């Protein structure tokens, strides 16, 4: 169909000028480009497809050679098996508790600190903010040893508190919310509320927080994605099987003597699913907020 269009368009485009013609003249360019982009998109999706496909294959099909792309006898058996082979529900619960709590504290601390840094001018506040900004670029991997030692002193090894500690606060979140308040929070509104006799906490709770709900939502998504995907800290801070996160359990499961890729893929799908659902529902907002802030 596109070839037909191409033939129809070309002669006419040679005779005229203007943007539209230029665009049409390039039509033949765009067909191979689309082809390349589609192949590339296929490569981007292939690992996910392969994960889903394998998770529905019975054991004999998992190790078939050459492998089938679509399972011939699709089964849900692998999904049942993940929960049999390990306390997967417990791991999922752990991940969920940690992620949701950290998401909550990150949103709360980021918005409160961001609001204070954006609006309140007291001596010293700027210096504090600059310190936070400067430490924001220090990668977690460089200071995890002292943090681990500290958790040991606090007797927080192998506890939820220990697992959550580094993610209670996010310097990027503070920075992000501060920018948001500077740009969008009308100070007259705050002054008006003060004249009406509202206290500072009430102003924060009833005016500032609701006004920044979309920025908070973006931050919440970002926090959820980053805490859910955490690996190195849970690896260090947990000893007992009870405190494992989904990520940790999956990574440990694959080093068992005989790796069963069927259940392993099923577990991976379950681990991926919350993020996938969030991404599908909020795809536009996620890409836009990454684009605006460069968050990583």
């Amino acid at each position, binding site marked *: 169909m596109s070839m037909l269009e191409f033939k129809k368009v070309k002669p006419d485009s040679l005779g005229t000028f203007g943007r539209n013609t230029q665009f049409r003249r390039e039509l033949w360019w765009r067909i191979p480009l689309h082809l390349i982009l589609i192949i590339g998109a296929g490569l981007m999706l292939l690992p996910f497809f*392969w994960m889903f496909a394998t998770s529905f294959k019975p054991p004999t099909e998992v190790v078939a050679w050459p492998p089938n792309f679509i399972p011939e006898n699709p089964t849900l058996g692998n999904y049942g098996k993940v929960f049999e082979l390990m306390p997967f529900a417990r791991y999922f619960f752990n991940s969920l508790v940690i992620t949701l709590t950290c998401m909550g504290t990150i949103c709360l601390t980021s918005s409160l600190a961001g609001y204070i840094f954006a609006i309140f001018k007291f001596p010293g506040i700027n210096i504090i903010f600059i310190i936070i900004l400067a430490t924001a670029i220090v990668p977690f991997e*460089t200071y995890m040893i002292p943090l681990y030692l500290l958790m040991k002193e606090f007797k927080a090894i192998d506890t939820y508190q220990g697992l959550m500690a580094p993610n209670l606060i996010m310097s990027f979140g503070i920075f992000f919310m501060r920018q948001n308040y500077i740009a969008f929070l009308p100070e007259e509104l705050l002054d008006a509320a003060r004249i009406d*006799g509202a*206290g500072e906490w*009430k102003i924060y709770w009833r005016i500032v927080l609701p006004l920044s709900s979309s920025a908070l939502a973006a931050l919440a998504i970002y926090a959820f994605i980053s805490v859910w995907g955490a690996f190195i800290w849970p690896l260090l801070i947990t000893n007992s099987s009870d405190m494992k996160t989904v990520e940790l359990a999956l*990574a440990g499961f694959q080093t068992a003597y005989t790796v069963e*890729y069927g259940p392993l893929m099923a577990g*991976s799908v379950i681990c991926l699913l919350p993020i996938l659902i969030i991404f599908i529902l909020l795809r536009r907002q996620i890409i836009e907020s990454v684009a605006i802030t*460069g968050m990583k």
Partner: protein
Amino acid sequence: MARSFSSRKEGPAHLGGSTLQRQKLLFVFVGLTPILLIYGVVRIWPIIRTFSLSLFDSDLVKPEAKFVGFQNYTDLLSDDSFKTAFINTSLFALGTVVASLTLGLALALILTQFIRRSGIYQLVYFLPFVMPIVPVAIVWRWIYDPSYGLLNLFLSWFGIPKQAFLLYPETGLWAIVAMNVWKVVGYNMVILIVGIRNIPLLYSEAAAIDGAGRFGVLRYITVPLLKPVILFVLVVTTIGAYNVFTSVYVMTQSTTASGNDIKILVGEIVLNGFRYSKMGYASSEAVILFVVVMLLTLIQFRFVRSDT
């Protein structure tokens, strides 16, 4: 808690300036103190202690068992594992940056200059970036599997025999680079697309009037004006690559030939600090990582400033 605070404050409507100021100060104090306390405990103090710890020789019981000055750093120089790790990590970063930046830039240019309605492509290419690394690394390990892997299936179509990609560090490192490029290319693309969209149309139109073709505009207008954004992407990707750990850990754990594992910086920190309890020594490695990241950030600031 917030409620009780506010109700107490609902006093006189005609507040004097100083009362208001005092209320604000109280709010700032009460609001900021717990946050700064947490921040100090989980971030600032550990960062400081990384530096001090790197000057000590640790034993199993006491991290600061014996002050050794810069001994750990001089030991690093003669530590072959560390050297290999540093080279490997740098290669990993180099490979990731070159490939993901080239591909990301190509994608960004194609999607903004040649294709209308690029939204669906953006979504698909961006998808791997938000996905958690562990399940992603697991499925890539399965793709690279020597006996049943998808990649070996593709290669078999061209008559290439089965390969064990992850078995040796020489090939394994690049196999993981390929996965990492797949994961971060969408992020680079999105940031570069924003950069391109922020270039005023005026410039390219002026160049077009002066007779520049489409590729001329790309080469002499778009890409040069995009330089600060390219630099940002470059630095962010490099920093991310220097911190690589999870993908290497998940993909090579117990698959590599024994004693042949892929050494990387963070892997060395974890190994020395937590397996061998050499926390001081591991801290000195962490400081090196910190210095690398710092230098990269400074380079970025410098160039961005001189450009604008």
